C-alpha cells in the first residue's frame, strides 16, 4: 500500500509500531518544508533523523508532539497515528499529547527554578502525585533515569540554571521523563555539549530505549551510528531513506544517502 523504503529485518517485526506517519506535509507559509513523508517509528527503539541543515528534521520531529502548533505560519497535513489515534484529530488536546510525547531541545533550557521544581513541574501540572512524598519519589526516579541523581541529590534546592551544560541537558531529559511519556523526542540534544557530556547523554539514551520510543535528531553521523537502531535520512524535505542503522551506514540504497554519509553533501 505505502512505499516505505527499506523496512525489513527480524527485529523490526518483533517490536510494536508506536508512530505511524503517512503522507505528511508541512508548509511554513509558502515554504514546503516536509514533502510527502511516510514512516513508522517503533516502540523501544532509538530512531535517528539525519540530514543536512534545513532539510526538515526538526520540523518533522516537532510534528510528532504538535510543537508546530505554536508557529503561526506552520501548516501540517497528513496522518500521524500514535497507537492508532490521529494526534491531529480535532478532539486531541495538544497539552495531553505533549505529556505523552516528551521533548528535549537542542539548547538545554531548564526553568530558572530549583532543580527539584524543574523536574516536579510536569508531574504537578498533570496531577501525577497525590502528595509530597509521591512527588519526591517521582522526582528522584526521573533524576536517576536522567543519570544526574548522584550529582544533584544534595542540592535539589539550588537553581537548575547553575548546573553545567551537560548537567542541564540531563536535567532536561529528567524533566521530560518525569511525566512518564511514551515517546521521547530529542532535537540535537548534544550539539551544545562537550564530548564527555555527550557520551553521558548517549549512554542515557541507550538506557532510555528500554522503556521509551526515542527519536533523536542529530548532526553527527557517528552519534546516529552509536545510539540508534533505525535511521531516517532527510534531504530537502524528503524522507530519502529509512531503515536499520547498520544498513544505512554500510549499504545505503539511495545515492543521496551515500553522498551525505561519505561527506559529499551536507
Amino acid at each position, binding site marked *: 500500500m505505502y512505499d516505505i523504503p527499506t523496512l525489513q529485518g527480524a527485529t523490526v517485526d518483533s517490536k510494536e509500531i508506536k508512530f505511524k506517519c503517512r503522507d505528511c506535509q508541512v508548509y511554513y507559509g509558502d515554504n514546503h518544508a516536509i514533502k510527502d513523508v511516510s514512516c513508522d517509528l517503533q516502540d523501544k527503539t532509538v530512531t535517528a533523523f539525519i540530514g543536512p541543515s534545513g532539510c526538515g528534521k526538526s520540523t518533522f520531529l516537532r510534528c510528532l508532539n504538535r*510543537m508546530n502548533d505554536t508557529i503561526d505560519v506552520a501548516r501540517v497535513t497528513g496522518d500521524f497515528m500514535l497507537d492508532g489515534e490521529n494526534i491531529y484529530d480535532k478532539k486531541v488536546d495538544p497539552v495531553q499529547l505533549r505529556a505523552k510525547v*516528551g521533548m528535549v531541545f537542542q539548547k538545554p533550557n531548564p526553568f530558572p527554578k530549583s532543580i527539584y521544581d524543574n523536574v516536579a513541574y510536569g508531574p504537578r*501540572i498533570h496531577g501525577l502525585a497525590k502528595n509530597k512524598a509521591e512527588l519526591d519519589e517521582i522526582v528522584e526516579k526521573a533524576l536517576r533515569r536522567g543519570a544526574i541523581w548522584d550529582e544533584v541529590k544534595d542540592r535539589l534546592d539550588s537553581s537548575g540554571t547553575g548546573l553545567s551544560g551537560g548537567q542541564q541537558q540531563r536535567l532536561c531529559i529528567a524533566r521530560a521523563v518525569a511525566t512518564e511519556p511514551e515517546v521521547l523526542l530529542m532535537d540535537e540534544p548534544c550539539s551544545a555539549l562537550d564530548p564527555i557530556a555527550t557520551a553521558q547523554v548517549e549512554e542515557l539514551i541507550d538506557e532510555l530505549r528500554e522503556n521509551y520510543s526515542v527519536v533523536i535528531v542529530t548532526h553527527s553521523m557517528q552519534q546516529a551510528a552509536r545510539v540508534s537502531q533505525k535511521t531516517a535520512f532527510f534531504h530537502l524535505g524528503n524522507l530519502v531513506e529509512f531503515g536499520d542503522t547498520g544498513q544505512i551506514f554500510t549499504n545505503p540504497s539511495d545515492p543521496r544517502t551515500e553522498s551525505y554519509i561519505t561527506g559529499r553533501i551536507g
Partner: protein
Amino acid sequence: MTDATAPSLPRKSKSLLAEDDRTKKRNAAEKRFKYYGIAAISVGLVFLVILVATILREGTPAFTRTAVTVDFVLTQEQFDEAESAVLKTAAYTRLFSQFVADQAEEKGVATDLTDEDRAEIAAGLERIMGKIGSDIRVHYRENPDDVGSPVRFNLAAASRVDAYLNNGQSRDGFVSSRFLEEQDLDLIDAMVEIDMIGSDWDRTFFFGSDSGVDNPGGAGIGVAVVGSFFMMIVVLVLSLPISVAASIYLEEFAPKNRFTDLIEVNISNLAAVPSIVFGILGLAVFIQFMHLPQSAPLVGGLVLTLMTLPTIIISTRASLKSVPPSIRDAALGVGASKMQTVFHHVLPLAAPGILTGTIIGLAQALGETAPLLLIGMVGFVARAYPDTFVGGFTEANSVMPAQIYTWASRADPGFYEKAWGGIIILLVFLLTMNIIAIILRRRFERRW
C-alpha cells in the same frame, strides 16, 4: 604549489614595545571618548546637585512656621469683662496684648510702658499674629474651666514675620507696609528675647488643606496628599490588570494580522499623546457625558489610567518579549497549556520589567498636572479630609502637583515657599515609589 614555494618578501618585524601610529590614534580616540563620558556624567551630577540644593533651600522653610507662644492667664473678671463688652474679640485682643506688654516689662525688655506704647504693641501684635482675639475667645468658650489658670497659646505668626526671622533678623531692604511696619520689628526682637516667638514644625503644612489666597500660613498639603493617594489607587487598580492582560494577550495569544498590527500602532501612538488631550477627553466623557462628580479623585484616576495604560503596556510587552522562547518551549514541551506557560513561567520572569514599567507609569501619573486642571482638581476645592473611604474617591479634592501649581500661581510670596515645600513632599513620594520598585525587583530577581 607554486605559491607555496615562491620565496616570500622579507617582512620587517615590528617591535611590540613601541606603539605604531594606528594604535596611538586608536588609543587616543578611546581616551577621548572616556573623557566625554565622564564630562557628560559630571554635568548631569552638577545639575542634580544644584536642583536638590535649590529645592531643599527654598522648600524647607515651608516645613517650619514662626509661632508666638504665650502662657496666657485670663482672670475671671477679665473673662466677664470681655464677654460683656460690645466688641468681644477686640476685648480679648486688648487683654492679650496687655498681657504680652506686662510680660515684657516683667522680663525686663521694656520699661515704663505708657498707654500709647501699649496701644502700639496691641496694634503691632495684631499685624504679627493676625486676629488673635477670636482664637482666644473660642478657646475659653470651649474650655471655660481654663479661666484663671495659665494656658499655653501657640499661634502662628504672619508670613512676613517668618521671612524677617528666617533672614537672620536683618532689616536690609525691609519695606514698611500695612502688613508689617518698621516699629513692629522692634517688638518682634523683644519677643524673641523673651522666647515668646520662635519656629516650630508647621503641622498645618503637613496635615492641613489649602487656604484662602491671603493666608499662606494656613495652607497645607495634607488633603492634597490624600487626594493623590485615592487617585493613585484608582490608577493602579485599573491600569495594572488591564495593561498586563492586554500585553499578555497581544504578545502571547493574539494572531499576527492587520487588526493586531493596527492595535499595536495605536498603542504606541497613544503613549505619545499629550496628557492635556486625555484631560479634555476625561472632561467630555466622564464628567459631561457620564456625570461623574467633578474634581473627584475617581475621575482623575480614570483620566490618568488612560494616560498610563500605553506606558505600562509597552514596557510589559517589552519584558514579555525578552523572556527567552526556549522557556516557553520547555514548558509547552512538558505539557503545560499556553496559560500555564504564561502564568507559571513567562510572567514571573517578566515581572521585574513589568514592575518597573508600572512604577514609572504611576510616577508619571503622580506628577501629572495638566489633565487634572481640566477636570477641576485644582488646589482650592477641598477644605477638609474626606469623611469616608468611598468619599475619598468621590468628594472634590486636589492632588499634590495641582496644589503646587495653584500655590505657585498665587500673588502672595508666602505661597512661593509653600510651592517649594510641596515639591519636596512630592519628590519624597516619588523617591519612595522608586525605592519600593527597586526592593521588589531585587526580591523577584533573587527568587529566579
